[in-house]
C-alpha cells in the first residue's frame, strides 16, 4: 500500500481534480439533455467545445474582449447554433426510429468541425493568455488557479440554470416529459422537434460555456475535443444517464479519480483507469452512481 500524503497535498489534489472535473461535468450535462429527448449520443460535443474555445480566443486577440466577458456572446450564440444545427442536420433523421443515422451525422459533424478548425486556425496548439492566466487564489487554505476556479463557477452556474429551467418552467417540464416518454409526451401535444431543438440549443450553449473554461485554462488544438466527448460520456455514465445534477457530479468524480490516479499511480494510467471505471459502472450500476432505481409500473 502507498502511504497517505499529508492532508494539505490531499486537499490540493482533491481541489484540482474537482475543478478540472467540473468541465467534464458541464459537457456531460449537455450530452445528458440531448440524449434525454433524442436518445442520441452527441459525439460532436467535444468538438463544439473546442470550436467555442477558438471563438473565445478570436474574440480576445481580435477584438480584445475578455474571455470571461465573452460568455455573454458565446452562450446566446450557442443557443442559436444549437437550434439551427438541430433544424438543419438532425430534424429529418430524428423522425426515423433508427438512431444510427443521427449518430453518424454527429460523427460526421465532429470530423467536419475538427478539420474546418484546422483549416482556419491551423493544427498547432493554441491558448489564451491574459493578465490573470498565471494568477492564483486561496481556496480552503490551498492555493489554486484563478481560471480553474472560474471554470468551476461557470460549470456550477450552467448546471444550476439548466436545473432551474427544467424544474420551474413549463417548457422545461415539457423537455423532462419528452425525455421520460416521448410517445406519451407527443400525444399530450408536445412537439418532438420543438423539445429536441431546445435540448440541442441548451446543449450547444453549454458547450460554449465549457469552451470559455477550456480556453482560459488549457492549451488546445482542433482535435482535443474528442477526448472531451469521451470524458463527458464517462461522466454521464457515472452520474446516471438522464440525470442533470448527476452528470455534473459524475464529471467532478471523474476529475477526482484522474487526479488521484495521477498522484498515486502514474499519469500514464489516468485514461486507462478512467475508461475502466466507465466500463465497470456500465456493467454493475448502469443507472449511475447517484440514482436510486425505481420500479416502473
Amino acid at each position, binding site marked *: 500500500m502507498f502511504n497517505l500524503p499529508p492532508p494539505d497535498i490531499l486537499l490540493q489534489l482533491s481541489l484540482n481534480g474537482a475543478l478540472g472535473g467540473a468541465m467534464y461535468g458541464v459537457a456531460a450535462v449537455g450530452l445528458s439533455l440531448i440524449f434525454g429527448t433524442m436518445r442520441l449520443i452527441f459525439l460532436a460535443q467535444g468538438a463544439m467545445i473546442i470550436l467555442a474555445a477558438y471563438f473565445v480566443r478570436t474574440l480576445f486577440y481580435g477584438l480584445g474582449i475578455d474571455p470571461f466577458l465573452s460568455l455573454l456572446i458565446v452562450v446566446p450564440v450557442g443557443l442559436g447554433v444549437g437550434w439551427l444545427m438541430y433544424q438543419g442536420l438532425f430534424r429529418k433523421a430524428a423522425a426515423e426510429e433508427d438512431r444510427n443515422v443521427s449518430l453518424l451525422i454527429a460523427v460526421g459533424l465532429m470530423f467536419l468541425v475538427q478539420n474546418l478548425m484546422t483549416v482556419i486556425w491551423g493544427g498547432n496548439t493554441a491558448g489564451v493568455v491574459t493578465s490573470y492566466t498565471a494568477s492564483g487564489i486561496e481556496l480552503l487554505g490551498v492555493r489554486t488557479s484563478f481560471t480553474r476556479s472560474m471554470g468551476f463557477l461557470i460549470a456550477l452556474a450552467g448546471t444550476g440554470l439548466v436545473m432551474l429551467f427544467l424544474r420551474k418552467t413549463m417548457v422545461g417540464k415539457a423537455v423532462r416529459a419528452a425525455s421520460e416518454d416521448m410517445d406519451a409526451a407527443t400525444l*399530450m401535444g408536445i412537439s418532438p422537434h420543438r423539445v429536441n431543438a431546445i435540448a440541442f440549443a441548451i446543449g450547444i450553449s453549454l458547450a460554449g460555456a465549457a469552451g470559455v473554461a477550456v480556453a482560459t485554462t488549457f492549451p488546445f488544438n482542433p482535435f482535443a475535443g474528442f477526448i472531451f466527448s469521451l470524458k463527458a460520456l464517462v461522466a454521464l455514465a457515472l452520474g446516471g444517464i438522464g440525470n442533470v445534477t448527476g452528470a455534473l457530479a459524475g464529471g467532478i468524480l471523474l476529475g477526482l479519480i484522474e487526479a488521484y490516479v495521477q498522484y498515486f499511480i502514474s499519469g500514464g494510467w489516468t485514461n486507462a483507469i478512467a475508461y475502466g471505471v466507465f466500463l465497470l459502472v456500465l456493467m454493475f450500476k448502469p443507472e449511475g452512481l447517484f440514482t436510486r432505481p425505481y420500479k416502473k409500473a
Partner: protein
Amino acid sequence: MQPDETLLRLEAVQKRFGGLVVLNNVDIAVGPNELIGLIGPNGAGKSTLFNVITAIYAPTQGRVLFRGKDITGVAPHRISRLGIARTFQLVRTFLTMTAFENVMVGAVYGAGGRVKYATETANAALELVGLTAQGDMRTAHMTLSDRRMLEIARAVASDPALLLLDEPMAGLNPTEIQRMVDVIRRVRTERGLSILWVEHKVDAIMKVCSRVIVLDHGEKIADGTPREVTQNRKVIEAYLGEPAA
C-alpha cells in the same frame, strides 16, 4: 344520428404490417357524449386501432375523420390539440414529476399551449379523479391505481372531446375497479366527453356501456347494445371458439 353530429368516423380503415393485416375495412362512428366499449380477443387489433386514431400509425387504406375533418396522417402532437386524448394499457405517467406537474403538461400542451387557466384546469382534473390530496406527490411513489387515475386526469386536462381509454382496469382490484367505473361515468356526465373504451373485463363493459363494438382478427364483427352483442353468433364464436359441428 345526423352525419354532422358524428365526432369520430373511421372509413374503411385498413392497417397492414408487411403481409399481416391487423385492421381490415373497419368503419366506426362515435357520436357526441357516447360511451362505447371496444372489446375483442387478444390480437384483435384494438391497440392498433387506437394508434391509427392518434396518428401514431398511418392507415394503409381508409380515412380517419374528426369533427368532419380528415385527420389521417397529421403529426401526432397535433392530435391532442384537435381534441383527442388517450391513456395507455401500460401506464405512462411521467414518473419523475409530481401528479400536479403531470396534469399541468396536459393542461398546457395538450390544450395547445395556453397557460392562462392551466392551473385551474389541472386542479379541476385532479379533483375529478379524486387525487387532489396527492397533487404534490412524485408519481413514482404512487400506486398503480392512482397512476391510472392520474393518466385520466392528464388526458381530461387537455380538454378533449374524445377520450380513448386503453384497458384502464388492468391490474386493479375490485374496489379500485368500482372507483374507475365511477370516474369514467363522471368524465362522461360532467365533462360531456365521448369515450371509446378498450377493455378485457367484458362484464364491466357490458354493465357500463350503452354501446359495444367487437373486433376480431382486425374486422368489426359486431356493433350494438350489450344485449345485441352478447347474442351475436360471431361474437360468441370469437370468444368461445366455433361450436362443434
